[in-house]
């Protein structure tokens, strides 16, 4: 079973703020890429997936990273 990493937050606003911070870190928006991720609500928490490799890798800088 494959597992992926998520940045997990209490509110949608916190998750979006973290996305904004990561976008600034990665240089997004750029050609063809307008955002890093969208927050999704799962079990009362807000999370977004973080890349573990490639040019958008950010699992090493994202906050509250969990592996599921």
């Amino acid at each position: 079973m494959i597992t992926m990493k998520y940045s997990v937050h209490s509110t949608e606003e916190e998750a979006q703020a973290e996305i904004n911070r990561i976008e600034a870190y990665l240089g997004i928006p750029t050609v063809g890429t307008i955002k890093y991720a969208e927050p999704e609500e799962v079990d009362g928490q807000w999370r977004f997936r973080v890349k573990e490799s490639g040019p958008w890798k950010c699992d090493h800088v994202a906050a509250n990273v969990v592996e599921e």
Partner: protein
Amino acid sequence: MANKKISELPSLTTPASGDQIAVVDISGTPTTKRVTANNLMTLAPVQSVAGRTGTVTLSDTDISGLGTAATTASTDYATAAQGTLADSATQPGDNISTLTNDSNFIDSSGAPVQSVAGRTGTVTLSNTDVSGLGTAATLDVGTSANNIVQLNGSAQLPAVDGSNLTGISSAVSSGTAASLPSSPSVGNIYLETDTGKLRWWDGTYWNTFNYDSQYDPNYAANQLGYSGGLFNGTNYNISTQPKMHFDAAILDGSDQANNPSSGSAVSTWGDRSGQAVNYDATQATGSAQPTFNVSGNDKYLSFDGGDSLDFTDYALPTTFNMVVVCNTGADVHTLLPVGTNTNSQYILLEYNGKTYGISGSIVDNTYGPNYNSIQQFWSTRDGSNNQNIYVQGANSIISTTTSLPRTLARIGKANDTIFHTGDIYEIIIWGADLSTTDKNTVNSYLANKYSSLPTLTSFS
């Protein structure tokens, strides 16, 4: 001879050699003896001079041991007075001060050089004493730091390491394809040592000289050709233009020369079918973008289980063909190259060891159940609603009949939480059922292109 008086002797005739002369020996008792002229001559202290007798006149040649002075005229020699003057004359080694100065003589003030570099006496010059020298005058010739380079006897530059050359607009480096410089300058050239490809950075992409462009005849000849597409009249020409054709080797659907560097995130996978309706697949969310990769001659997109690309919905007609080259990651069992716009609808899916078509499923223990290495699949439906899933050419693993509609909408993901996890090399979808000949031509094209594909069984 008669006795003669002494006084008579001068008038006598010259005696002959045998004439006798009386000699009185007065020692002791006086006695008289006779002697001839010859006897007297032998008793003479000198018998001859210079080998001659008689009246002898001598010359310098008659006398041995004479020096050259003996025959030199006395006028050639100094007189005693002259010798006296010579003895008192200025001799070598005498101080110049012994000379008497007058107006015709020079003194130090009249010397043409008064000083050198402001100095007199024994002067040793250095570079700082000479004006007008350039900076090169004090540098050494060589190939070390701060040396002046000198051409050799063949007017060639000496062996200077290329890395020491600066200001060259095109820096050449080398390494593996995975180690392409991350911050290149426009014009940088990079030799991929593991692929043998020469690449150059145009400011946006690492272009490759492996094929100059898709218009390279050698490259074009091995493409899938069809009327209306990028290529036609190739070694692998078919009669039906596909509805969409995603080829990772031509990522933007236009020119493989535009391919990005390996490891780049993919926001657009261009449709190279040439159809009026463009099915370019896009993803604007970074965390959902697959990655473009290069391995040898193969190009592919890697999907990590959360990636997908969306394209304009395409409602499949009854008859359709899809061929795909893909795999799943090791120990990951979700193969979903093309997803639909509706949950739980697929035209090809391998999930947890089970393979699905539009309808029907099978545990493929012949070629699967998992497809961790590169594989080729067909998903087809003919005009009689016969739907088949083929693996490795014409090996059917699912054969069923169904008229269920399907609308294709994305790559790498169905409209739910199931994502493709692995690599996708190429996807071709036709709104028709290809002829057997064309299917085999497509297989030949793929087999030639992807050397790692298993042997593909021909359709018959």
